[in-house]
């Protein structure tokens, strides 16, 4: 979340809110990104294992991402209102696993929840940490829609660059040495 890496508590649960999926948006998403008959055509979908129209898994996941972004913005505003400096969340390198369980049908309401299951300092990017996030989506019957294990970057508050790195960075700013160093790396 929008906290400094050091302030993130393992296993703290963040409810992200819910979304009700309409038939129109299910078809609209599928038309652009996942045009399989059971995501597009309610009549043809009756022949599928689902027995009717269902949302693309990628659609329910994209909505889950939107819910997470909204929660990040909301927490940033809350921290600023309290006169605190929010942390910085960075890009995501990827997704370890995504498991689709129960399909989403028109009219279903899906609730999303995020838990940080683990964190560690990044080996590749100094000054940043890695967060291991579990996002779960549950429908109005309490059935699991999907479970995702996501990885995200978060900035360290208490980080000072080692002297060696600071010197190297200063060297790259010199007009002649900079390009040479860059070519070498």
């Amino acid at each position, binding site marked *: 979340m929008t906290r400094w890496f050091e302030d993130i508590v393992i296993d703290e649960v963040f409810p992200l809110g819910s979304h009700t999926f309409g038939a129109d948006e299910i078809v609209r998403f599928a038309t652009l*990104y996942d045009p*399989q008959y059971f995501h597009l055509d309610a009549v043809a979908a009756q*022949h*599928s294992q689902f027995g009717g129209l269902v949302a693309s898994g*990628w659609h329910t996941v994209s909505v889950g991402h*939107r819910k997470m972004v909204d929660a990040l913005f909301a927490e940033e505003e809350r921290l600023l209102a309290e006169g605190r400096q929010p942390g910085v969340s960075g890009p995501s390198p990827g997704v370890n696993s995504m*498991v689709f369980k129960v399909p989403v049908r028109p009219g279903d309401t899906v609730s999303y929840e995020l838990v940080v299951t683990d964190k560690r300092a990044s080996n590749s990017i100094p000054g940043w940490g890695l967060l291991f996030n579990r996002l779960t989506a549950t429908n109005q019957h309490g059935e699991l829609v*999907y479970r995702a294990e996501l990885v995200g970057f978060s900035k360290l508050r208490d980080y000072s660059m080692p002297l060696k790195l600071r010197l190297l960075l200063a060297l790259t700013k010199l007009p002649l040495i900079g390009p040479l160093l860059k070519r070498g790396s």
Partner: protein
Amino acid sequence: MTNPVTKDRRHFEDLTVGEVADLGHITVSKEMIITFAREFDPFPFHLDEAAAKASLLGGLASSGWQTGALSLRMLVDAFLSKVASAGGLGFSDLKWKNPVMVGDTIGGTVTVAELRRSASHPQWGIMTLDFDVRNQKDQPVLTMRLANLIDTREPGVPA
């Protein structure tokens, strides 16, 4: 019971491990990036060119989820619409390798990595696909392993 929608498509028994499908291409426009970002990923660096230039990405780039969704679109057009797909099970090891910038053309391949019959549902087989999506400079953009159910012609007969 035969599914009239998919009866003429390739079934589980018709697929081979190691088979490669060409995904074709999609060119990603500024409008596509902003439309997706507004609905699903409204960070300033996916919405606004000036904010994007100042960010780590260095310019307007698509949401990683959009890159994935476009990869899926290419998969459906090139491959999944020609097999008796019964739905996706999920994916693993998704990696965003390089951002997709305005005007980039992405394409690539999928390889059938694994085929096995479902132990609990004899009417299905499970196909795993490895994605290798690249941009016009042949730089890797996205890799992932997707698992999808495919109808069998003859339920329960070992492959």
